């Protein structure tokens, strides 16, 4: 039913002499987070080229999630030149991501950004330290969609998504967290779009065109002769996506 990810990505190609300040493997200095205003990418201090490579990696891991989205960029370094910014824009553009705004506390960086026509966002708390505050995949909010999601419609959200209604074939749901469908799920759903293999997808009737959880992909079994319709939960078990009947536990 499921295929393992096509290629496992090495955590990062960081040189050993540059230890991550947070100590996390691979995603220490590029943090992607869903916020109230949308997606926020934070580039901590460190070698600029390393940061860009890491950003490129992270975006490449969840292409479907990022493509066409707008992000807010936060930069920790205060010495980013116009050329550096152009490089970041190029990386974002390669993944079809638009830079909505840049957040910086450095006047130098702000001037470089303005020269490029990048919109500046006010830092949330000017005096706050730029050290990692929260783990990267922490979702603060979910959305509740109270209608039928029809063919051609797409719902993207960095957090959890709850649909009260059907998800028809040709519709897609892309969520950073879990997806719950209180209805029939017939379309394409991606849960845990930022490489969260722990995410789950559940529906009253789970008959999707395709399911994706984290880095795993599965399609519905070809056997369409369903004996009875019952609520099911899909999750990653032993390296593949498995759907199990929902029982109160």
């Amino acid at each position, binding site marked *: 039913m499921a295929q393992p990810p096509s290629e496992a990505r090495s955590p990062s190609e960081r040189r050993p002499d540059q230890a991550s300040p947070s100590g996390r493997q691979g995603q220490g200095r590029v943090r992607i987070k869903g916020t109230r205003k949308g997606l926020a990418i934070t580039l901590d201090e460190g070698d600029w080229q390393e940061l860009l490579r890491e950003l490129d990696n992270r975006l490449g891991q969840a292409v479907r999630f990022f493509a066409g989205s707008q992000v807010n960029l936060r930069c920790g370094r205060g010495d980013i030149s116009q050329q550096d910014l152009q490089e970041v824009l190029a990386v974002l553009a390669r993944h079809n991501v638009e830079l909505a705004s840049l957040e910086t506390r450095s006047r130098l960086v702000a001037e470089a950004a303005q020269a490029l026509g990048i919109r500046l966002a006010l830092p949330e708390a000017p005096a706050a330290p730029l050290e990692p505050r929260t783990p990267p995949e922490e979702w603060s909010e979910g959305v509740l969609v109270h*209608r039928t999601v*029809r*063919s*051609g*419609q797409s719902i993207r959200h960095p957090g959890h998504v709850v649909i009260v*209604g*059907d998800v*028809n*074939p*040709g519709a897609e749901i892309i969520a950073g967290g879990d997806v719950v469908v209180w209805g029939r799920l017939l379309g394409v759903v991606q849960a845990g779009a930022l490489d969260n293999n722990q995410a789950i997808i559940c529906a009253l009737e789970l008959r999707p065109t395709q399911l994706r959880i984290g880095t795993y992909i599965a399609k519905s079994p070809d056997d369409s002769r369903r004996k009875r319709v019952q609520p099911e939960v899909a999750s990653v078990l032993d390296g593949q996506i498995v759907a199990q009947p929902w029982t109160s536990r």
Partner: protein
Amino acid sequence: MPGTVITITSGKGGVGKTTVTANLAVALALQSQHVAAIDTDIGLRNLDVVMGLEDHIIYDIVDVVRGHCHLSQALIRDKRLSGLQLLPASQTHDKSAVTPQEIAIISQELAANNDFVLIDSPAGIEMGFQNAVAGADEVVIVTTPEMSAVRSADRIIGLIEAAGKGPGRLIINRINPGMVRRGDMLNTFDVIEFLAIDLLGVIPEDEAVIVATNQGRPLAFEQSRPISRAFHNIAHRLLGEDIPFLPIFEEPAETILTRLQRFFRLRQSGPR
């Protein structure tokens, strides 16, 4: 009070938008309503052929938009039925020859003097569709009981919702009662459950539609055929009456021969 502007659309082509538009226009006019039908399928006009008014065309909708004539000059009156008018599409331009705003203005003008304005939409979800729904008070979606058409209807309903024109109401065209009974065709319930919108009518399949189209005389002019009754019922529902749906799952007219055939078929396959 201005009349109601109703756009008839489908997404997928060939499901019977134009046939439905022509027949509903006739059925409403037979109820003493003033009806103006607009063909917005610019470049591929058809409604004039189905309504049998092709040889009366002097001006078309593009002429109106470009100021070559007055709206009243482009309208073709149906001599068979007072109160029925057609604003034909142009055959020599394309969809970009008019804008959604222009269609909306024309439909408003027509609604001022008519009880109903029926807009026949082209297939597709592009410019032509945007033109057709811009002025609509209500949208009627036509589908056939095939998965491909139902999927397209689903897509188009999403776009109608996005345009703020409500989910619309559904007409299921070309239901074949025999196939439904044998379980070879999606039935009304399947389609409605999938699309989750209100049903406006169910129209049985009838070969006579082809003859009627070739002759330019919509079947709604007749009274007795099941398909004609289906169109009249939809007209009554558009007028706000509560009309029960046709018993579409019965054969329209069961003769002794077909009855015997059915009896033997059942005997052969045994009771289910």
